[in-house]
């Protein structure tokens, strides 16, 4: 069982988490086309490489966060706050 470094709780067994999948940004609902929307819904890169994913610490702090994991070795090189939270932090200048 791999260990996932939760930004809040430290390294914990992967069973405590839910792997949400590749991180994606949601299209603007006001302007999206059906094709763009369904690409967002369904299409995946599915790389055999380093990928950025979203994980959720279900049996821990209940926080979503971003993880950089290699899908061949399952090594994890970084975990950090979700993109929206990082943007918000930058925006607020803190």
């Amino acid at each position, binding site marked *: *069982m791999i260990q996932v470094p939760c930004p809040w709780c430290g390294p914990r067994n*992967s*069973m405590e988490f*839910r*792997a949400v*999948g*590749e991180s994606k940004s949601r299209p603007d609902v006001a302007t999206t086309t*059906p*094709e763009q929307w*369904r*690409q967002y*819904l*369904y*299409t*995946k*890169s*599915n*790389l*055999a490489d380093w*990928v950025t*994913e979203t994980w959720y610490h279900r049996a821990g702090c209940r926080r979503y966060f971003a993880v950089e*994991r290699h*899908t*061949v*070795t*399952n090594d994890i090189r970084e975990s950090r706050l979700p993109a929206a939270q990082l943007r918000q932090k930058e925006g607020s200048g803190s």
Partner: protein
Amino acid sequence: MSKVRYPAKYSALGLIKHGLMKGDWPQVWRHHELKPSYDVVIVGAGVHGLATAYYLAKNHGITNVAILDKGYVGGGGSGRNTSIVRSNYLTPEGVRFYDRSVKLYEGLSADLNFNIMFSQMGHLTLAHNDSSLRTMRWRAEVNKLEGIDSDVIGPDEIKKLVPYMDTSENTRYPIVGALYHPPGGTVRHDAVNWGYARGADIRGCEIHQQTEVQSIETADGRVVAVDTNRGRIATRTVVNCTAGWASLINVMVGLKMPLVTHPLQAAVTEPVKKFLNAVVVSGSLHVYVSQTDRGELVFGASTDPYASYSMRGSLEFTEELAGHVLELMPGIAKMRLLRQWAGLCDMTPDFSPIMGITPVEGFLVDIGWGTYGFKAGPVSGESMAQLIATGTTPENIKAFDLARFPEGRLVGEKGAAAVGH
């Protein structure tokens, strides 16, 4: 339909003759130098790729075909699955499609002159609550309308079929009924792979093992060649039959599809004397189990919870599996797990494959097979061969086209998958 003569037909008499004369059997398939061009290049020498080649040659006389594999014949999902065959799906399209596969499997030993050991021992999908029983009923009713032998049975009948099953009421996961599908069963997966390989080889198709596709050349939106570690092959038709690795081939022609690769683990126990004469599946408990003629229990479960190309097994898989198997059959706690392994599954959002043409001309796919690819091998090969030979998508795979995703026409198997198992 082309008929061929095998240089040495397999038979009981042949075995005796070879036994007496101590002669050698001819090679099951041959090795070849890579030619500079083929009419069709199939990537992946698993059951889908091999069956496609076999039916191209047998049904359509197309034999200038190369099947490439970076490893060996049947080394991927085709040799790692738990070899269950059934047709008790949910949608009429699905039922008809898989029923054709069951029919092909029934005749395959004779057709291939290779005993694939199709054992139609019967297939039980257990229901542990009223909602899963309703889904079983749904499948049974659709199956019956399509002429498939399939019905819902109660705990007493289950107990008769599987005496080891704990059908008592006060268990954590009481068994309230099951979908019983008598024609379902298991085959010997290697035999299917080898039989198709031998049949394709004898008809002139070339199997190239240890031949890895490194890139695919396109020009003006169509495929023109495949580059491999053994050289370049000019071709106008490439078929991607690489299951868990499908995305890595797609990207060579610039395509991204709705696929996520998840490992699927399986395990076997040490052999014990035969006591289980049906394939038993519990969706709620994420376990399926059957017993081989050798006496081993073969187990499978659901896919791993995160995407990965790793084929290393995990401990938690075996723990959950064993715990759940013992919920069903508490008497076998002292049996021992012997070996675990993993294969890679390319999962789609609607639990249905992606088959047929793509926006890149000449680049065809037979992928997205998730956890149910093996049982569909024969019919997929037959249908893909027909598509390649005629240029027209056969009726039975139209629902599985790539365009269903941008067009929002997902296949109904998602219905059952989402309605609690």
